């Protein structure tokens, strides 16, 4: 706070705003949040939210949301967005969802948050309810929610975040409660399970049950304030609630961290393999410290299973560093789990940069874990966009400390995520192949690439939405879109849509490119065009352009318009349109560039990709 004051006194607005952002993301109590809120208001005239991605959030609830709004606004700004928040008002959820043209519908949010408190439930069944009666009650409760989701989806056209119900602090039936189907906490657990099983794809759960348990159920609510003003949680609990909600929203509209870069000695196992030898390392049962390192490896393995890429960056001889993976039976991770392995004596920032290049991901998608504070500080200073975990000197703390950052939180797992490590390893093999070929064309031929190009399909909407919201580099407009809006484009006759899936002799890259444009008469305007960085320079953009030209021609389109909106990350595609034969249109007053292509002048590009109906691999 002192640094914030100094920056203010020095009228160094960027520094003050940066400090504010940092303090906000770390805030854990209400008073700090309130005071940062006042700072945000003082600094508002120096802030430039228009430079950040807009997210429109509607707050609906069966409780008061008034106090959540300023905190949420502050935290979404700190997360790097321009938040626009609409409060629907106390207990108006049903009306706002069911009524076409309601205030919330007119506000056109990308996401509606349904704040739900179990204190608002009025029709609990008797505790003596039979199992069947209790299940029927749970089913009916969730039915009602599902019909609200459906109405919101149809009338507001947005994605939905819904709170799971937190446990109640009262336990009138004591330890008998779990055996009573009609006990309220038993019912709450039933509702949460039932909801998780039945909520449609456009609904994202916000796990307040876990959040309240983590912070203490007894302190989660302040009953006085519930009775007075239907305030759903205590003021202290609002801070972890909103921190978690802001992270959740951010993860829907931005890439989460993708890659975990791990040191080895005293990070993955106890001891120094070069000095102690494989036999001298602490890992696994029989030794408490060894068990702590095993627990960390197990946590890391869980992240890997759902698509987090693992890499090693260790100061070691390569052979020494690999030995435990080959010889130590207590290792949870194998060499196959690692997409990149750097064991050498070069500075770690150089190695991390090399890993990022090899995997073709941004430094801001990387998390670095190292027990050595000097290495951490070097990485932080040299590569400020890499997220560095400040672990304690006790390995038993490592998993919890990594867990609580939420850096790897993701709204859903696509099949691409689960297959990711293998895809990156395939890329390494491609690199080797490229090194064998002196000419790039020969390399592309030898890859034996196959692509599927098709209009959007229901089955792929999740992956398409994920790419739209997370692709930064090959992205012409960086326009984020909710799943619901993407679905709308898919169904609309006014839109041409396409996705590309690419496979080659080394494996399937999955769905890697997304495109759509709006047709008006003979004019087609490209609204989205993006591609995963994994497949740069393979001819996919040329292939897609050929496809677009063909489809547009069939519809009687004569002119295709495209816009390039520059961001700090998408310089790569600044010249995509001219490279495909588009001509510049007079520049508008902003930084964007406009391009147009007369369709009859387009010459299909030469590509080394065979278009197929189904990828073989």
């Amino acid at each position: 706070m002192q640094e914030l004051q100094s920056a203010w006194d020095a009228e160094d607005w960027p520094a003050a705003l940066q400090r504010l952002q940092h303090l906000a993301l770390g805030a854990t109590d209400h008073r700090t949040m309130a005071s940062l809120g006042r700072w945000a208001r003082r600094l508002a005239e120096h802030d430039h939210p228009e430079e950040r991605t807009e997210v429109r959030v509607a707050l609906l609830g069966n409780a008061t949301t008034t106090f959540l709004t300023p905190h949420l606004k502050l935290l979404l700004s700190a997360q790097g967005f321009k938040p626009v928040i609409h409060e629907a008002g106390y207990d108006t959820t049903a009306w706002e969802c069911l009524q076409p043209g309601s205030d919330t519908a007119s506000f056109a949010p990308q996401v509606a948050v349904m704040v739900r408190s179990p204190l608002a439930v009025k029709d609990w069944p008797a505790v003596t309810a039979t199992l069947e009666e209790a299940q029927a009650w749970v089913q009916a409760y969730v039915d009602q929610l599902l019909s609200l989701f459906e109405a919101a989806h149809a009338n507001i056209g947005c994605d939905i975040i819904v709170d799971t119900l937190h446990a109640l602090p009262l336990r009138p039936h004591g330890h008998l409660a779990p055996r009573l189907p009609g006990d309220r906490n038993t019912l709450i657990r039933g509702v949460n399970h039932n909801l998780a099983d039945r909520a449609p794809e456009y609904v994202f759960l916000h796990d307040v049950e876990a959040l309240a348990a983590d912070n203490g159920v007894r302190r989660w609510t302040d009953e006085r304030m519930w009775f007075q003003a239907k305030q759903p949680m205590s003021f202290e609990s609002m801070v972890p609630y909103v921190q978690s909600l802001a992270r959740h929203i951010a993860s829907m509209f931005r890439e989460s961290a993708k890659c975990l870069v791990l040191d080895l000695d005293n990070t993955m196992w106890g001891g120094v393999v070069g000095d102690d030898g494989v036999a001298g390392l602490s890992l696994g049962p029989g030794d408490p410290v060894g068990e702590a390192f095993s627990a960390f490896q197990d946590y890391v393995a869980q992240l890997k299973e759902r698509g987090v890429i693992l890499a090693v960056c260790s100061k070691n001889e390569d052979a020494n560093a690999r030995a435990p993976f080959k010889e130590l039976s207590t290792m949870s991770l194998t060499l196959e789990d690692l997409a990149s392995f750097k064991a050498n004596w070069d500075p770690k920032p150089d190695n991390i940069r090399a890993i990022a290049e090899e995997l073709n991901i941004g430094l801001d998608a990387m998390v670095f874990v190292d027990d050595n504070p000097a290495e951490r500080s070097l990485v932080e200073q040299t590569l400020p966009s890499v997220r560095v975990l400040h672990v304690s000197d006790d390995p038993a703390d490592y998993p919890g400390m990594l867990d609580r950052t939420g850096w790897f939180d993701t709204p859903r797992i696509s099949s691409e995520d689960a297959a990711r490590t293998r895809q990156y390893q395939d890329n390494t093999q491609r690199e080797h192949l490229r090194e064998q070929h002196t000419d790039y064309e020969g390399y592309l031929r030898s890859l034996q690439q196959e692509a599927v190009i098709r209009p959007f399909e229901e089955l792929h909407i999740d992956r398409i939405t994920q790419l739209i919201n997370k692709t930064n580099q090959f992205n012409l407009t960086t326009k984020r879109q909710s799943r619901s809006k993407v679905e709308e484009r898919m169904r609309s006759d006014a839109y041409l849509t396409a996705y590309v899936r690419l496979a080659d002799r080394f494996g399937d890259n999955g769905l890697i490119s997304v495109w759509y444009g709006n047709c008006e008469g003979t004019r087609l305007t490209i609204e989205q065009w993006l591609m995963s960085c994994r497949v740069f320079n393979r001819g996919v953009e040329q292939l897609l352009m050929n496809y677009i030209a063909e489809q547009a021609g069939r519809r009687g389109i004569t002119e295709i318009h495209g816009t390039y909106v520059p961001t700090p990350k998408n310089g790569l595609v600044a010249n995509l349109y001219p490279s495909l034969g588009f001509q510049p249109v007079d520049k508008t007053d902003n930084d964007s560039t406009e391009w147009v292509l007369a369709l009859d002048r387009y010459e299909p590009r030469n590509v080394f990709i065979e278009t197929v109906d189904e990828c073989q691999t």
Partner: protein
Amino acid sequence: MKPTDTWDTLVAVIRETFGDDTLAIDSDTKAADVPGWDSVAHVGLMIEVEGRFGIRFTTGEVAGMNNVGDMVEFINRHLQSKA
């Protein structure tokens, strides 16, 4: 804390909460006299006051404060029972 201290601190908290440094407040001031002081804003004010004085109002007090004078009385009662 002396009674005058309670008064000064409370007035400062109210002015801060409603974002008006010049808000005229006397012991008869009611919620209805202050723009924005509705039942929800009241909760925010109560939490601020509790935090500032290190006390905890009862539900009845939260609901039963008819004017600023009542508030001072409740605060002082809590401060005394703490002492």
